[in-house]
């Protein structure tokens, strides 16, 4: 039971990461590697802020803003600097590694005996697992609602159009560079928020906690898509990312339960994502084969 609750809570906390990457990977239609730097950046900023006496709420906000700033850098490199998007993300991600060390002053930082969003007197009556689920659920509901509403504004539609057909968007007077930068800032803001949340829940931030996060985020998106296929509104698709994030955590719990080591998790993550990516294609082929036989 504890494991299940933990998976749900973790799923909620990691979900902003999936939602953030959804904005770039699915809507703008490119893989943004900045994620791997932004996630630990959000964590480092939040944890260092809390250690310096900032309230957890403000610290979480700072982590989010730091993430958005990283998105701005990648966005400028890509749109104004004409650096290919993969490389732009990798450049920012690499630079952030040093910045994170500077922010924390060391390679990791603990929140031992310090307040976090999940250990506030207000929620003192709840066991830790439940307070994580409660806060996570409230936050992710707010995030999904806001993102869904945003996507239905004129600005949001111009953002979607930019990812869908940049040429057409420009011919309608949409500033596609501005839209791309805005999308990267929003996405990385959410990812910074995810880093801040996960670090507070873990009780520490580590400069290496970003490794493999793009795989985690993609896994939430793809698992959500594979499990809930069919015609869906954009809002529904955002919700499937949250479910994808929870399912992914369940799978990890399961994998640990059948005897894998925590050290194996990156390999397992990659295998899960690889399978989820291949599944639609494999399924189709299998279908074809079966039809041929009949």
């Amino acid at each position: 039971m504890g494991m299940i609750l933990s998976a749900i809570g973790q799923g909620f906390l990691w979900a902003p990461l999936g939602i953030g990457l959804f904005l770039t990977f699915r809507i703008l239609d490119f893989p943004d590697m900045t994620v791997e730097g932004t996630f630990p950046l959000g964590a480092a900023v939040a944890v260092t802020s809390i250690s310096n006496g900032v309230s957890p709420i403000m610290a979480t906000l700072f982590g989010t803003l730091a993430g958005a700033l990283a998105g701005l850098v990648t966005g400028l490199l890509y749109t104004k600097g004409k650096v290919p998007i993969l490389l732009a993300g990798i450049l920012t991600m690499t630079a952030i590694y040093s910045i994170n060390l500077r922010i924390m002053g060391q390679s990791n930082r603990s929140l031992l005996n310090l307040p976090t969003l999940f250990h506030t007197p207000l929620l003192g009556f709840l066991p830790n697992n439940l307070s994580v689920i409660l806060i996570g659920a409230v936050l992710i509901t707010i995030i999904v609602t806001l993102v869904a509403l945003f996507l239905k504004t004129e600005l949001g539609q111009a953002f979607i159009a930019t990812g869908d057909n940049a040429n057409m968007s420009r011919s309608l007077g949409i500033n596609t560079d501005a839209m791309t930068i805005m999308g990267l800032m929003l996405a990385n803001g959410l990812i910074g928020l995810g880093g801040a949340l996960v670090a507070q829940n873990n009780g520490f931030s580590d400069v290496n906690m970003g490794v493999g996060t793009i795989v985690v985020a993609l896994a939430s998106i793809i698992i959500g898509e594979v499990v809930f296929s069919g015609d869906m509104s954009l809002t529904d698709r955002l919700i499937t990312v949250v479910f994808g994030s929870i399912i992914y955590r369940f799978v990890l719990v399961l994998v640990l339960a059948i005897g894998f080591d925590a050290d194996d998790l990156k390999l397992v993550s990659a295998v899960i994502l690889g399978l989820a990516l291949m599944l639609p294609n494999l399924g189709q082929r299998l279908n074809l084969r079966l039809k041929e036989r009949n």
Partner: protein
Amino acid sequence: METKLQLIDATVVVNQATAEEKTILDHVNLTVNSGDFVTVLGSNGAGKSTLFNVIAGSLALTSGQIYLGGQDVTYLGETERTKELARVFQDPKLGTAPRMTVAENLLLAERRGEKRRLRSRGLTEKKRAELREIADQMGNGLADRLDVPTGQLSGGQRQALAFLMATEKTPELLLLDEHTAALDPKTSAQLMALTDAQIKKAHLTAMMITHNLSDALQYGDRLLVMSNGRIAMDVTGAEKDALTIEEMLTFFNRY
């Protein structure tokens, strides 16, 4: 008569100061008046697309000036000119956003050249009825597919939608860049007739590139022929009406 477009000595030189230096638009002077429907002919590389790109702002002039609706737009970029100018491309894939629905595409185009704000896109029932009416003008079933992603439409429907999107908010100048060329003959003829009807009905000022000689003669009230980056022929009214396909072919063979 109101002047919608004026090009003064418009010149584009590519690969300047290299061995491959080439003048692809050569001191072109052109005035298009309100209500003109100009068809543009010319063989490949004659400068038709260059002319359109220069007018639309996707290609900068090396020298010369461009006025759109009385305003000097020589140094304005592509997106800044979209307030005055709308364009339909040859490739149906270029003109619409494939994952967005027909209604969403029409909504996007309604604000061509305007600032996109953080307010609801306003897809109300009333708006939906309005969009339905707009789509219905095409008479090709588009009106019944408002909620279908445009990627699922036929090429003809997509191109008709692209045309609607370009004319939804009346542009000072409409550029049609071989917009029926990728369609099968029947659909192409249908869209061409619809285009003509719409241009007449809304008194649009339009320029249309085409490779179809009979379309060029049948439609529009003025005909330009481009050759080597220059305007080699410019006829209007009765003079244009008197032209035959044979005459045009002879004319082309000379260049």
